[in-house]
């Protein structure tokens, strides 16, 4: 009796294998978050006691103040968020044309000062706009569009060289003052 049993086909039924694999696949599809870690990089100044006071000419500083009501004061005048980029570009690329503006892109510094009550959202937008001004100038310098500039791949030597050249021409110099606590 057992013999006759064994003589039958002894294969494992594998037709449901695909279904099982599908279930697992769907589980991983759902749980996967393709890791994309992007952001706006920033380098903080060294500890305050190590820092030497650097004297800068007033005209080489582009001052952006944000108060606790998220209003902007740029170079002493109220301004909309959308106008920062254009103004910042004019300031950075002035090269001494306007005697009361920056002398050269290398000397120009953008100073962003927020209040303790400023919301992070507005601050990040200002930072984004200023970075955009730099990036647009760099892209123009390289003769490419802003999108192309942002796509530059540091692993390709030629593209890295272009990036380094643009960075030398327009070094990102954003100074972040410590938040004040004046309310306002």
């Amino acid at each position, binding site marked *: 009796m057992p013999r006759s049993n064994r003589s039958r086909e002894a294969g494992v039924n594998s037709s449901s294998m*695909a279904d099982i694999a599908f279930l697992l696949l769907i589980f991983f599809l759902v749980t996967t978050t393709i890791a994309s870690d992007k952001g706006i990089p920033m380098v903080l100044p060294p500890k305050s006691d190590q820092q030497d006071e650097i004297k800068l000419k007033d005209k080489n500083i582009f001052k952006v103040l944000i108060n606790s009501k998220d209003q902007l004061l740029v170079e002493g005048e109220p301004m909309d968020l959308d106008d920062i980029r254009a103004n910042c570009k004019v300031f950075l690329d002035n090269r001494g044309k306007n005697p009361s503006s920056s002398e050269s892109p290398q000397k120009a510094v953008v100073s962003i000062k927020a209040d303790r*009550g400023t919301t992070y959202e507005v601050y990040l937008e200002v930072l984004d706009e200023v970075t955009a001004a730099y990036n647009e100038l760099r892209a123009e310098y390289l003769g490419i569009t802003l999108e192309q500039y942002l796509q530059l791949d540091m692993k390709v030597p030629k593209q890295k060289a272009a990036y380094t050249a643009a960075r030398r021409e327009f070094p990102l110099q954003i100074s972040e003052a410590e938040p004040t606590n004046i309310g306002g």
Partner: protein
Amino acid sequence: MSAHKFKKKTSASQEIPTSALPDIIFMLLFFFMVTTVMRENTLKVEQRIPPATQLKKIERKSLVTYMYVGKPLDHLKAKFGSEPLIQVNDVFIGTEEIVQFVEEERGKLDEVERDQMIISLKVDKETKMGIIGDIKQQLREANARLLNYSSRLPLAD
């Protein structure tokens, strides 16, 4: 005549061989298994990260340490209040503990990479800059000066 010929052709097997299907699915499965990173810590703070356009990708993820800043989630408000807090790993820390935390995290890196450590701040959009300023001061104290304001591209509208 021609109809007859046509009929003959259709008599050929029309089934698609499905024996390779599990293999294909398994390949996909392995791809997703390998790329999946399970979320390491449960968020305890609100995280509505404001969008930005000028983003840079972090090339080396192993150097990154995350700090989450925001108001505690609703079910934790009774215990921790509704003021923005800093969450690292699975716990809340005060600003005075940041230096110690950074040193601990730095110790986990290879010696040659310790000065390249990146702190990625994931900040809720309604957070005030006061606490961010405090964090930055502490990070300067800890000499962890590479900062990254984590963000994403704005959704197309």
